[in-house]
C-alpha cells in the first residue's frame, strides 16, 4: 500500500518536482558562474552554503505545497484516509517522500561542490562529513518546518510574516545576531566551508531537537481529532481575514522584541582611574598621570561638582570620567564616548604646564548640565542660561573658580555684536564671537539679574529652568512650551523679557565704555575668505587676515558642510604665523556648490580665551 501511495505521489507531482529540481540546479549553475566572474567565493563549499540556504527553502516550499497544502485544500486526503492505511503512516510516507526529494537535490549539489573542492584541496572524509552533517541537518530542519507549516493551512502566511518580524525585532532589539542562533549558525557560520576537524555537536543536537519538536507538532496537527483540525485550517482565508491576521501579527511582533533580554555591554569604566565621590557627584580621573596627580584633581573636581549639584538642586548627576590624552593642548577639552546616559567622558591633558583646573571645572559642569538635560542643548532661547550658569555658579563659590573681571572684559569685548535680539538668536551670536565670549555675555546677564532683583530670585530662576525633573521626551517639549522665557521672567522677576534684554544690552555696553582703554590693546582678528577659479568648476580658497594689534599665531578653521546642516562636518585647521601668513591659499580645492564654514582664531592672554573673527557659511560659486 505504501509503495502504491509512493507511486501515486510520483505520478501526480513528478513534472513540477522535476522542473523545480532543474530550476534549483540551474540556479546553482548561475551562481557558480557569477562567483567565478566575481571571485566572490574562496571555496566551493561556500557555494553549497548559499545554495543550502536558498535551495532548501525553494525545494521545501514547492514540495510541501504539493504534498500537503494542495492535498488538504482540495480535501483529497479524505480519500487517502479511506484506504487501509493509518493516517500516521500516510503522513509519514508523505514526509519521507518529500524529505528524500529535498535531500536528493541538495545531495547532488553537495556532490558537485565536493568534486570542485577536490580540485581545491585534499578533501578528507572528515571534512566532507562535517559539511554534510551541517548541510543536511539544516535542510531537513527547513523541510520539516515547511511541512508543518503546510498543515497550518490558511494561517501559514500570517505566521510566516509573524516569524519574520519577530526574528527581525529579536536581532534588532537584543544584542544577538542571526548567526548567533545555533540552528542558523550551522549554515551561516563563516567556518562552514573550512572547518575540517571539529564537529559542531551542540548545534547539531539543537537542530535535531528542533526537527524532533517540529515533527511532534506536525503529527499532532495531522492526527488530532481524526485530522479535522488540519482539514479545517486548510480552507482558504477570506481577503479581509488575511489583512486582519496580518495586522494582528504585526502588532504583536512589535512588542515581542521589547521583552527579550538584552546582552548589555559593561558600564563605562576608566581602568586604573582614581575615583572620588561626594553627594550625587562622582568623578574618576585617569590614573595614567600618576596617583599623586590624579588623586588631588579628582578630589578637588568632585568637591566642585558636588557644590554645583547642590547649587542647582540636582539630586542625580552623570558620573564624570576624565581621560588623559597627551595629544591635546592644555586648554583643549574633548568629549569622549560614553555608552550610557549615566556618564560623560572628557579627554584632557592634565599633565601639561598650562593646565588650568578652574577652567576645566567650568567646562565640566556645563557638560554635566547638558548631559542631564538634553532638551536644553537644542532650545535656542534658553541656551544662554546654560552658557552663563556655569560661570555664575563659579563666581558665587566661596573660592571663586573664575576671574569675574576677565568675564566682564570678555563681554565688553563683544559689545558691538550684542543687541536685544541676540538671546533668541544665541547660536548665531556664538558663531560671531565664540564659546568663551558668548558665555561671558551670558554671565553678565545673570549678574545683572542678581544685582537688580536679588541673588535669591536669580538662584531660584536658574534652578527652575535648569532643573532635571522634566523628562526628556514630548513631556519636556510641552513643559518648555508652557514655560517660555517671557513667562519665566514674569514669574521670577516680575519684568518683561524684552525689557530685561534691553537692560542686559545696556549693561554690556556700559562695561565696554568703562574698559574702552583696555579694549584698545586687545587684538581683534578680521579676515576675508574668497574663492579663486582654477577651472570652470573648481575653486581654491584664499584668505587675507589682519590681527590688530598683532598676535604671533593664529588659525584658519574651516569645515566642509554636508547636507543641510549649518555647522556639521569635520573641523580642519591651518596653523598660521603672523605676519608671514596673512595671505595664503589652502591646498584643498572646492567645487561650485560646495559649502564651507570658516573663521580665523587666535588666543588672547588678556582675555584668557580664544577670539574669533566670526564663523561664515559660504557657498562656492
Amino acid at each position, binding site marked *: 500500500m505504501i509503495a502504491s501511495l509512493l507511486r501515486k505521489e510520483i505520478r501526480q507531482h513528478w513534472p513540477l518536482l522535476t522542473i523545480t529540481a532543474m530550476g534549483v540546479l540551474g540556479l546553482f549553475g548561475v551562481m557558480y558562474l557569477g562567483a567565478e566572474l*566575481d*571571485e566572490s567565493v574562496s571555496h566551493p563549499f561556500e557555494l553549497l552554503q548559499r545554495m543550502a540556504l536558498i535551495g532548501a527553502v525553494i525545494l521545501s516550499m514547492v514540495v510541501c505545497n504539493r504534498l500537503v497544502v494542495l492535498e488538504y485544500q482540495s480535501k483529497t486526503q479524505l480519500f487517502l484516509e479511506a484506504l487501509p492505511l493509518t493516517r500516521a503512516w500516510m503522513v509519514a510516507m508523505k514526509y519521507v517522500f518529500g524529505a528524500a526529494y529535498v535531500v536528493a537535490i541538495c545531495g547532488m549539489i553537495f556532490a558537485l561542490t565536493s568534486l570542485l573542492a577536490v580540485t581545491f*584541496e585534499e578533501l578528507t572524509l572528515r571534512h566532507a562529513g562535517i559539511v554534510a552533517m551541517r548541510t543536511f541537518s539544516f535542510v531537513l530542519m527547513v523541510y520539516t518546518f515547511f511541512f508543518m507549516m503546510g498543515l497550518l493551512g490558511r494561517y501559514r502566511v500570517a505566521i510566516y510574516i509573524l516569524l519574520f518580524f519577530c526574528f527581525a525585532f529579536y536581532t534588532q532589539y537584543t544584542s544577538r545576531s542571526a548567526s548567533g542562533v545555533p540552528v542558523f549558525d550551522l549554515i551561516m557560520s563563516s567556518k562552514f566551508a573550512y572547518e575540517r576537524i571539529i564537529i559542531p555537536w551542540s548545534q547539531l543536537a539543537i537542530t535535531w531537537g528542533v526537527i524532533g519538536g517540529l515533527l511532534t507538532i506536525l503529527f499532532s496537527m495531522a492526527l488530532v481529532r481524526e485530522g479535522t483540525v488540519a482539514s479545517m485550517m486548510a480552507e482558504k482565508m477570506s481577503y479581509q481575514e488575511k489583512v486582519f491576521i496580518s495586522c494582528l501579527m504585526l502588532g504583536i511582533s512589535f512588542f515581542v522584541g521589547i521583552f527579550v533580554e538584552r546582552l548589555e555591554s559593561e558600564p563605562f569604566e576608566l581602568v586604573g582611574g582614581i575615583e572620588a565621590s561626594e553627594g550625587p557627584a562622582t568623578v574618576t580621573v585617569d590614573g595614567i598621570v600618576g596617583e599623586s596627580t590624579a588623586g588631588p584633581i579628582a578630589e578637588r573636581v568632585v568637591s566642585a561638582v558636588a557644590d554645583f549639584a547642590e547649587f542647582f538642586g540636582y539630586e542625580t548627576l552623570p558620573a564624570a570620567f576624565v581621560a588623559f590624552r597627551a595629544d591635546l593642548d592644555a586648554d583643549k577639552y574633548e568629549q569622549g564616548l560614553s*555608552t550610557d546616559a549615566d556618564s560623560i567622558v572628557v579627554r584632557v591633558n592634565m599633565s601639561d604646564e598650562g593646565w588650568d583646573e578652574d577652567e576645566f571645572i567650568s567646562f565640566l559642569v556645563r557638560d554635566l548640565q547638558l548631559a542631564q538635560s538634553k*532638551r536644553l542643548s537644542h532650545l*535656542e532661547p534658553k541656551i544662554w542660561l546654560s552658557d552663563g550658569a556655569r560661570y555664575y555658579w563659579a563666581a558665587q563659590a566661596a573660592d571663586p573658580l573664575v576671574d569675574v573681571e576677565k568675564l566682564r572684559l570678555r563681554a565688553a569685548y563683544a559689545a558691538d555684536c550684542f543687541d536685544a535680539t541676540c538671546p533668541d538668536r544665541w547660536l548665531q551670536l556664538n558663531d560671531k564671537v565664540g564659546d568663551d565670549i558668548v558665555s561671558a555675555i551670558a554671565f553678565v546677564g545673570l549678574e545683572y539679574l542678581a544685582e537688580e532683583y536679588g541673588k535669591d530670585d536669580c538662584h531660584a530662576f536658574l534652578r527652575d529652568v535648569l532643573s532635571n525633573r522634566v523628562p526628556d*521626551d514630548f513631556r519636556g517639549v510641552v513643559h518648555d512650551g508652557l514655560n517660555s522665557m517671557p513667562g519665566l521672567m514674569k514669574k521670577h522677576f516680575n519684568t518683561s523679557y524684552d525689557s530685561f534684554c534691553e537692560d542686559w544690552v545696556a549693561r554690556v555696553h556700559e562695561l565696554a565704555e568703562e574698559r574702552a582703554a583696555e579694549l584698545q590693546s586687545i587684538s581683534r582678528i578680521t579676515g576675508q575668505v574668497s574663492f579663486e577659479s582654477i577651472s570652470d568648476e573648481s575653486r581654491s580658497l584664499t584668505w587675507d587676515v589682519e590681527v590688530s594689534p598683532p598676535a604671533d599665531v593664529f588659525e584658519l578653521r574651516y569645515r566642509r558642510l554636508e547636507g543641510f546642516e549649518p555647522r556639521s562636518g569635520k573641523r580642519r585647521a591651518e596653523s598660521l604665523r603672523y605676519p608671514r601668513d596673512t595671505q595664503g591659499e589652502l*591646498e584643498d580645492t572646492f567645487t561650485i556648490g560646495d559649502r564651507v564654514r570658516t573663521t580665523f582664531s587666535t588666543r588672547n592672554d588678556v582675555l584668557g580665551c580664544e577670539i574669533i573673527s566670526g564663523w561664515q557659511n559660504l557657498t562656492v560659486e
Partner: protein
Amino acid sequence: MNLLRKELRSLLPFVWLLVFLAVISAIMELFEVPYSDTLDKLLSDLSATENSASWFIIVLAMTTGLLIREYDQRTLEFMDSLPLSRTRIFFTKCLAVLVVLLGMTLVMWCVEILFLKLGDDSFTDGRRHWTALLVAIGLDLIRMYVMVGIGILLSFFRRFGWLAAGMVYLLYRLVHPHVPELETVNIFRLTDIQVVAQTIVIPWPMIAAQVVLGTICYLISWWLFHSADRMVHGYRNLSLTRFGSAFLILGSIGIGITVFGILLLIGMDQETSETPEVSSTTAVYTDWGLSRASSDHFRFSYRSSLSERATKLIAASDEVHDKVVEFFQTSSGPPIVVDATSKMQRHAGMAEWNTVILDLNTSGEMENLKAVLGHETAHVFIDRLTDAKLRNIFSSIRFFHEGLASYVEFHKFDPSSDIENYYRTCAYMRDNENIEFEQLVNDGEFRRWQDTNAVYPVGLVFIEALLEQYGPDSINKVLSAMNREKMPEDLVGMAYWRDVMQAAGFNLDTVIGAFYSRLDELVDDRREWLDSVPQLKGAVRQNEWWLCIIPILQKMDDQPVELAETDEEAEQSADQDVGKGTGNADDEEGADGEEDEAVSEAEMAGQSGDWQVFCRFRQRASSPDSHYRNVRIDEDGEFCVDKSDYPGNVVWYQLGLRHDDGTRLYKRWREVSLHE
C-alpha cells in the same frame, strides 16, 4: 464615485494597517529625545533600502488581489453588467490604491515634518528646507506610483507574482555589478537622496526611466484587464494544473536565466572594451597538474609548473608558522590548508578559517613569499583566537586585523616592500589630517574618504602604538576580550572598541592618544620628505558628455609644475612593479585593480621629480573596489570619464601620487555632481 467608494471600502483594512504603523511610529518618536530629528536624518531614513523594501511589500500585498479578486470571485461578470467600462473600473481601482498609499505617504510626511520643525533654530533656512522636503516628497510619491504599477502587473501572476518579484531582484543583484546602467530602473534607488550645496540632486534619468516603466506596467495591466480575459482565465486554469504550474515555473526560470545570460554577456563585452591593452602578458599554464605536499603545520596544493617555488616555500613554511605562533604566544592547532593554485587579480594572498589562499605568481623572491605566508597565517591565528567572531563585525575591526597581520609581516619577516613606504603613507595622511580613529573603526566611512588599502599601514601603526603603550601581552588580551563569553553582538565602531579595550583592562582613550602620538612621531621624523612631496589639487571641468579632472601639481614654493609626457623607462618600471596587497578573505574589496593601475600609471602624464599622478573614479561612496575605474590621462593632461556611466548624477574621484620607489599617496575622495 460609488465605485471609488466601494474600492476604498475594500481597502479599509490596509488603511487601518497603515494608520496603525504611522501611529506606532509617531508614538515611538514622542518618547525619544525631542529635537533630535534633522533634515539630513529624515532624508537619510528615506534613502534607506529597508524603507523602500518595506513599502514594496505593503504595495504588493495591497495590489495582489486588486484585480484578480474580481476574476476569482466571479464578480467581474456582475460589474460588466453595470454601465461601467472595464477601463473605468481599472482606472478607479488604481486610483483607489494610489489615493490610499499617496495619502498615507503624505500623512506620514506631515508627522515627520512636524517633529522636524520642533528642532528649528535661528540657523534653519526655511526656504531651502521646504524646497528639499518638497523634492523628497515628490520622489517618494513617484516611487509609490511606480511600485503600484509593478504590483498591479505582478498581481496577474497570482502567487507566482511574488516568485517573479524575487527572481527579478535576484537577477538584478547578479547582473548589476557587470551592467551598472541597470541602476536606472532600480526602484529602491529612486529615493537615494544626494545633496549638493543644500540642494537635492534630482535624478532625472532615473525618474524618467522609472515613470516610463511604471506607466508601461499600468498599460499592460489595463490591456490584460480590458481585453485579455481569455488569457487571464487561461493563465488561471494553467496555474491550477500540474503541467501548467510546471510550465510556468520552467518558463520563469528559463526566461530569468536567458535574460541573465544576455545581460552578463553585455556586461562582459563592456568590460572587455574598456580594458586597456596590456603591453606585456603573463602566461599561466592552467593545464598543469595539481600537486600536493605537506609540512608539519601546512597542507599545500599547487600547480606543478611552480613546483620549484612551492617546494622552497613548503620547506620554509614551518619556520614561518613557528614565528607566528611565537608572536601570538599560542599553540599550533590543526594544520592549515594552503591553496597555492590560484592566480588572484587583487591580492597576493587571502585567509579564511584555517585556510590560506596564496598566489605563487606574486613573486619569485622566497623572503617575500614567506612574508606573505606569514601575513596570512597571522590572519588565521587571529581567527582562531577569536573563534571567527570578528567576521561578523569586520567593518569595525578591519584595520586591526590587517594591521596586526602587517605587523607580523614586517617585523617578523623580510618582505621585498619596505616598511618605510607604510610609514610614509601614514605620515602623509596624518600631515593632511586624514586619519581619525572614529573613522577607522567604521570601514564604510573610511572607504568613503580614503584609499581602502590605507588600513594596512595605519593599522600597523596602531598595533605598534598598542604594543608600545601596553606591552607585548596587549595583543592577546585584546583578542581574548574580543572572544569572551556573553559579549554583546550588536556593538560596532567606537562602542565596540571601548567595550573590548575595557574588557582587556585598557583605556581606549589612552590607546588612541598613543596612536596619534606615534603618528606625530612619524610626521616629525619625515618632515623633510613631506615637504618634498608636491601639493596636488584637482580641478573639475565638464561638458554635456564628459567630466574631466585636471591635476595641478605645486611644489612647496608654490611654483606650479609642468606636466610632461612619461618616458619609456617610467613605463617599464611601472609595468614591472605590480605591487599587490595581501588580504583577509572578508576583505574582499582589498587592493583595487592593480594591473589596471599599473597600466594607467605607466601612461600617466606628469612628473614632479620622481612623482607621477593618477586618478580613479567611482559611482557612489559605497561602490566596491572592483568597481573603481582607473582612467588614463589624455593628451590634454586630464583624466576624463563618460558621464553616461554615472546614472546617479554624481561622480566620485580620487587623485593620487606614485613615487618610483613604490610609495603611493592618495588624496581624499571627492564628490562632484554632474550637470550639463
